[in-house]
């Protein structure tokens, strides 16, 4: 079987060809008028014909007419029936539902004798079913209507090649912008049976759009689209709640059988995950009350990272760190430097000095909780009556704050921190008294990356691990370290001294990371990392290593998600009751080494922390994991946690929301038009109700497959152009011979 199409190769196609043809025709007519002066009729005819031939050939060469011939193969194939089992099929509940009408059709088809019929249900996924029993147990529970996904999966499956036609039985409520033309190219006819009704009454929150990240005490907005079907419209109050507490209520004017949008401002007041609900009142006769309320998650963070930097004396280490932190627009730096101490003689009265008292109470009592990160840089607490604040700093870290201690002559043991609450949270243990080896070790050294830490992001100066080790070797040497007694169990040593050892053996650490309760801590036993900037820059011309290191360090301490060793994500943020959530992620330990080929469990907990579901999974060699969780029916906020089987401790966590309605019921209208377009595009039939659908025997299952397109362009050859030139020259020669110009 063949089909033919005609076209032009000239830019602009038929229009350009037509304009060109008209132009040439006018020129020929003018030329023929000039020939009327030729007295001999034979010559007039010959020259006229030559002119016409030249013009025609020139037009053909320029316009490039061509014929496209497509050949088809037609053969009888199998029949597949796809039955929509999404939750919208349960509507309307007051009258006979779409599900009930679909069931009646399936019962009729089940009585058919037709062979070669396979049946599937679809919602979010395609699942095989039995025609004989499907009508009895037809569900309406899937959380999405994915007609395109189901067809794609069907055609790509084992039986896809032998298919002749598909029948889709659905309400057409697919909101995923289905590309019907994509299936036309497959050659399989997609017949459609629409299950729809008139006069659905529903007021709904059709759409909620909000940024997933909000900033503490900064105004944010949520855009809410409200739709009214089958009602009078008018003002509909929209209420925004957080944790059932009303945040704001606004009214939106919705036209009858239309929709309107409103933006509701809100201001997050607490850090962390927040679940907000948007709701409208239930209208009289509302067929879908589930879509009167929707929820969204906001991760509330500070717009800027708040860092408290306290330095015991001005030094180059403090100077370069302050310069780095001040330069970062994402950081709000509060710094206090001890510019003089009790032994200094300023030779001036207080009014001649620009010095201010050290506001210990404001910093460590009133505002401590407002900081994301506290850095003690070469700072001793003793002279400033700070002993009473040290427990507060420890508690701040245990509750989730971050703390870094940077070395120097006033730091670690030299700062008097042994046996204080600060030593409880440090990732290193301090010597209880001056040991025989002293509290500091002088001398230049090149720190060594601890075994297995090459892939830790804080040490990543270059992306390639082997080049990264070389980059560390090119850094300027550091100078001197504070001695520690030992590394706290569970802490992670990233850098160590190449020659100095701990009293108990093993390399002396230079950079150690740890955790204390919910918080993170860092111990850097030197005060000369500034040399990775200016000194390295002076030697190599590249001073960027210093900023890269501290950028990563601050981001790790403040739990930047991009630097977390383990992450899991869900395929959506919001689900309907009982939906299936696909969870994927990468699981690595604190050293950023993959938990490869490990047994893990994905645990689902509600907002109060109670376990409501659990599914086992296994990681691949790179620590990647994927699993599907069946969600509970109860609406609310939930979190999925990944943990190693048989071990305590959460490796990674992600939040999700279960809504009563979800996306599937947000727009409950049937869309028979979509089904009609799908059928038309694939050369199939559309029936606008189950009652109108014929028996299975009458459904055409002949598959029409294209065998290719062949194009013919007779004037694309160089000989065509030679012919034009020859015709033109022939006329010119005759004109000259017969005495014409």
């Amino acid at each position: 079987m063949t089909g033919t199409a005609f076209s032009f190769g000239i830019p602009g196609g038929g229009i350009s060809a037509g304009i060109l043809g008209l132009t040439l025709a006018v020129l020929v007519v003018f030329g023929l008028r000039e020939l009327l002066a030729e007295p001999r009729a034979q010559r007039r005819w010959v020259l006229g014909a030559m002119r016409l031939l030249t013009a025609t050939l020139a037009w053909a060469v320029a316009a490039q007419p061509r014929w496209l011939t497509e050949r088809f193969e037609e053969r009888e194939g199998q029949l597949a029936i796809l039955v929509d089992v999404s939750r919208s099929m349960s509507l309307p509940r007051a009258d006979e539902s779409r599900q009930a009408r679909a069931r009646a059709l399936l019962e009729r088809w089940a009585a058919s004798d037709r062979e070669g019929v396979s049946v599937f249900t679809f919602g979010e996924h395609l699942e095989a079913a039995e025609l004989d029993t499907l009508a009895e147990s037809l569900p309406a529970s899937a959380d999405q209507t994915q007609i395109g996904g189901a067809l794609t999966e069907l055609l790509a499956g084992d039986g896809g090649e032998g298919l002749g036609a598909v029948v889709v039985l659905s309400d057409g409520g697919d909101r995923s912008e289905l590309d019907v033309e994509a299936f036309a190219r497959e050659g399989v006819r997609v017949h459609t049976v629409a299950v729809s009704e008139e006069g659905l009454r529903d007021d709904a929150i059709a759409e909620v759009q909000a940024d997933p990240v909000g900033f503490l005490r900064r105004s944010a907005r949520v855009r809410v689209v409200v739709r009214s079907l089958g009602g009078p419209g008018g003002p509909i109050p929209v209420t925004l709640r957080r944790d059932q507490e009303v945040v704001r209520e606004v009214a939106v004017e919705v036209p009858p059988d239309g929709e309107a949008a409103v933006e509701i401002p809100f201001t997050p007041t607490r850090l962390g995950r927040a679940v907000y609900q948007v709701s409208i009142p239930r209208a009289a006769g509302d067929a879908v009350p589930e879509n009167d309320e929707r929820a969204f998650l906001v991760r509330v963070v500070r717009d800027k990272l708040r860092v408290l930097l306290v330095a015991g004396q001005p030094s180059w280490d403090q100077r370069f760190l302050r310069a780095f932190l001040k330069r970062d627009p994402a950081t709000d730096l509060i710094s206090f430097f001890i510019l003089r101490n009790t032994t200094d003689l300023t030779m001036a009265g207080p009014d001649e000095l620009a010095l201010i008292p050290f506001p210990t109470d404001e910093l460590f009592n009133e505002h401590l909780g407002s900081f994301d990160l506290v850095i003690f840089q070469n700072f001793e607490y003793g002279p400033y009556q700070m002993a009473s604040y040290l427990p507060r700093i420890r508690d701040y870290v245990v509750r989730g704050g971050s703390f870094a201690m940077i070395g120097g002559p006033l730091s670690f043991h030299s700062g008097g921190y042994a046996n204080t609450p600060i030593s409880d949270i440090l990732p290193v243990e301090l010597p209880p008294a001056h040991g025989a080896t002293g509290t500091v070790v002088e001398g230049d050294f090149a720190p060594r990356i601890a075994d297995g830490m090459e892939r830790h992001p804080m040490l990543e100066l270059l992306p390639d691990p082997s080049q990264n080790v070389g980059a560390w070797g090119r850094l300027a040497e550091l100078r001197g370290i504070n001695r520690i007694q030992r590394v706290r169990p569970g802490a992670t040593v990233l850098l160590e001294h190449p020659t100095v050892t701990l009293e108990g053996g093993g390399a002396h650490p230079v950079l150690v990371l740890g955790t204390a309760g919910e918080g993170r801590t860092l111990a850097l036993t030197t005060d000369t990392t500034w040399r990775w900037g200016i000194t390295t820059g002076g030697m190599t011309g590249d001073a960027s290593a210093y900023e890269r290191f501290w950028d990563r360090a601050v981001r790790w301490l403040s739990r930047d998600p991009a630097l977390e060793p383990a992450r899991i994500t869900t395929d959506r943020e919001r689900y309907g009751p009982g939906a299936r959530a696909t969870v994927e992620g990468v699981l690595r330990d604190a050293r950023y080494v993959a938990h490869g080929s490990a047994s893990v469990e994905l645990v689902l907990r509600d907002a109060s922390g109670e376990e409501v579901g659990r599914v086992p999974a296994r990681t691949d060699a790179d620590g990647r994991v994927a699993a599907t969780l069946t969600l509970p029916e109860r609406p609310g906020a939930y979190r999925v946690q990944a943990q190693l089987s048989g071990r305590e401790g959460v490796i990674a966590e992600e939040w999700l929301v279960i809504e009563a309605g979800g996306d599937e019921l947000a727009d409950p209208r049937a869309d028979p038009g979509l089904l009609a377009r799908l059928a038309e595009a694939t050369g199939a039939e559309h029936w606008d109700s189950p009652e109108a659908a014929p028996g299975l025997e009458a459904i055409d299952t002949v598959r029409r497959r294209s065998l290719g397109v062949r194009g013919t362009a007779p004037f694309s050859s160089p000989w065509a152009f030679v012919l034009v030139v020859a015709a033109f020259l022939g006329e010119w020669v005759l004109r000259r011979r017969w005495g014409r110009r």
Partner: protein
Amino acid sequence: MRSPSVTTTAITIAAGLLLAALAPRAAHALGESTRFQVRGVAHGGADVPRPNAARRLGVEISKRTSVDVLRTPGTSRLDDASIFDHPFLYWSGDAAFEPLSGAELSGLRRFIQFGGFLLIDDASPGAAGFDASVRREIGRAFPSRRLRDLPNTHTIFRSFYLLDRPEGRVRGPDHMEAIQVGERVAVLYARHDLGGAWARDNLGTWEHPVTPGGDEQRERAIRLGVNIVMYALCLDYKDDQVHAPFIMRRRGGGP
């Protein structure tokens, strides 16, 4: 001009001595090389006009502030990698000098670009030789920048002491000049012979008379030196919001 009150100063000194006796311990750096050092610039074999000035500035910094100072000043050529070990350079001169070599210019550019601080001190204020050479070399090293007048409201005038204007051995111009890199003063040029006011021999005798203000002007010159070092180490720390009400009140501009 605010001059120190003798009574207040005496009380402060007495209180300082008392507290010094009670101080828990002196800070010991993680090695000599990690301490702050005033490092002089050597160029072309020229004599340094105030050889004791850098050491004396170090002594004053150590005595008056919490900065841990290496009291033995060093000297480096600008093409020597050691300038990147001590990011504070002090370049003093009193006569014209030969142009910097290409390597010296390159070293100076990198030093400034990567965060170093250069204090240039004209020990012959009023004479053209050193000044002309400085401007020529600064122009060669930083062709896209030029020395600009530094307003006396800049952080340098309140980084430790509250000062109103620059002064050195001579009262000199009412401003200093500077090259800024971003928000940071990276090159500071004073035509007040600061080193002449700081220099003191091993017996404790001031080496040069200070005019016209005598010892009070010398004290202010020393304070300016302290402020310059404090600015190099703390940058715009004193511009942080928390300092503003205290400083305004002490300058008489606030409650």
